[in-house]
């Protein structure tokens, strides 16, 4: 490798490192720092373990919540044991329609999702269920969404076996003004 090029702005150092693999940073103190690119990638062998039926359910167009066999607290997310009383839970199918409990539109995101911006996040509440579900809310713009808005589930085919195999859309088309 040739001698790394020298920069006085760290932003330029980052750019150079990303393309050439190394750069020298002449820092305000007057000394020089050698900065290199250090890649890092891992494939995990990830088991969903006791939560597996939830993800298999999404692939079949079902959202499975957990109901406590003892106190009957109903969770909108998988939880094999109840956090209120510690007893085992059993699966139940959530309604496919719910309401927006809270929401936001993200104009930035983590690097993996940056290309999908802007996107909406929503916490959905369901009748007869004690907790919420975090999801993407699609087919709606920032100006359309409000707390209490009715939303329905849409499933991804073929599934990727991720929580994003389900997302929600408005139950009714927003009225055009």
């Amino acid at each position, binding site marked *: 490798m040739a001698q790394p090029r020298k920069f006085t702005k760290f932003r330029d150092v980052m750019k150079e490192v990303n393309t050439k693999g190394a750069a020298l940073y002449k820092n305000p103190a007057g*000394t020089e720092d050698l*900065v290199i690119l*250090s890649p890092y990638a891992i494939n995990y062998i990830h088991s969903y373990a006791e939560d597996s039926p939830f993800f298999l359910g999404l692939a079949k167009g079902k959202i499975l919540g957990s109901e406590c066999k003892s106190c009957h607290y109903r969770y909108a997310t998988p939880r094999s044991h109840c956090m209120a009383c510690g007893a085992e839970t059993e699966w139940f199918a959530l309604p496919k329609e719910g309401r927006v409990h809270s929401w936001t539109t993200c104009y*930035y995101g983590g690097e993996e999702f940056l290309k999908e911006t802007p996107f909406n996040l929503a916490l959905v509440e369901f009748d007869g269920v004690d907790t*919420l579900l*975090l999801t993407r809310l699609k087919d709606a713009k920032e100006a359309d969404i409000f707390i209490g808005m009715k939303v329905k589930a849409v499933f991804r085919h073929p599934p990727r076996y991720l*929580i994003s195999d389900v997302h929600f859309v408005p139950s009714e088309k927003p009225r055009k003004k």
Partner: protein
Amino acid sequence: MPAPRKVYMISGGVTKFAKAHPDMDFRLMVKRAFDYAMKDIPELRTSDIESSRISYFSDHFARQLKAASMVQDYLGLNPKDSRRIEWGGATGGQAIQAGWETVASGRNEVCLVAGFETMSHVETWKGNEFIALASDTNFDYPVGGFYTGYYALMVQRHIYEYLRKTKFARVKDEKKAQREATQEAKRIMAMVSVKNHVNAEHNPYSQYPEKLTMKEALGREMVAYPLNRPMICTMSDGAAVAILASEDVAFKYTDHPVLIKGVGCGTDTMRLADRPHGSVPLFPWEEAGYYSDLRYPGVHSFRAGRAAALEAYKNSGIRDPKKELDFVELHDAYASSEIQTYEDIGLCRYGEGYEFVDQGHPFLEDIDYGLDLPHRGTIPVNPSGGLIACGHPVGATGIMQGVFAFWQLQGSIRKHFGNDKLQIRGAKRGLIHSHAGTGSSVTVTIMERA
């Protein structure tokens, strides 16, 4: 349980927080903060330090497992007792409490608490991804993977509960009422942002001091509705240390130690969606009837913060924090969570946070903010500039708050900042608050002038 021994903070040091410190690795950053603290109490020798509690949040940012061991040997503390502390965003606050525990228990007379983070190792949006790995990676991360998004979800519901249902209750059209309430909340969050940036103008350690105006604060780029850039803390490189000592030795090293009067810690579910909708754990001065219509904590408030404050006030004998505390340094990762935290720690009741800001209560008396503030100075919050303006190198942040609180209570702000604009005159007692995840763990520590 036997009463714990009294524990004092006897010195502290902070590196200037910056976007990047490519000229210092984490060991040297901690060493600089450590040397500063040691210089302040020349009687203390490194050999007097019996143990260390070293905090950093992320193995991903560090890309060095057991980085705390490298700090330990760089400072020359081997072969003494040491451990790494990690507790998400509350890592620093938790490290101070871990140090407190080892001295309070009688195991050590002097313990070093040191923390750092090196977030510049990746670009900002990769950094956001790393931080989002501190949400449930099966159920939260793959949906959006973005903490600002999570905090936007929480404040949207907070606005709905506390502005839509009250101040905007008369607006008939639901969507219009929600939009107007959010506009009002945005204005008030911008006031918090102005307060913290303007305070930081006088803090030489801060990363983003700025004479921010309301117009600028409101006009800047949206990140996740309704949170825009100046309402959000940024990523930083930095380190901070606090040296703790028992009552037996503290006064040997300084005439002005600061007592760690009480500690508290609370927790909540990792997934925001799983938070219960029950009733409010009450402070002794609150009446249940006031919250009869409130389903708590839901996603609008931090039960972990309430639990931490309840424990810390009980241990410190505090009955009225607004009167008995002279200032608060709290974890304002977002302007929204600063307002939510006022309510959690009882500076006002749930639902009064927006009005608390609008009336000026958390602003400093002698600083010009360009705002009309009828009741300023009741209890200054984040006089240092907080995370929003000082920066947030996670493992150092909670310790930084401890150092700023220590200097406030010593009355030594001028000595350490080079000016005394932020010195709260006669400050006797302060609170520091460190907060993790979407509120999955929070620490509250009460510090008092000895």
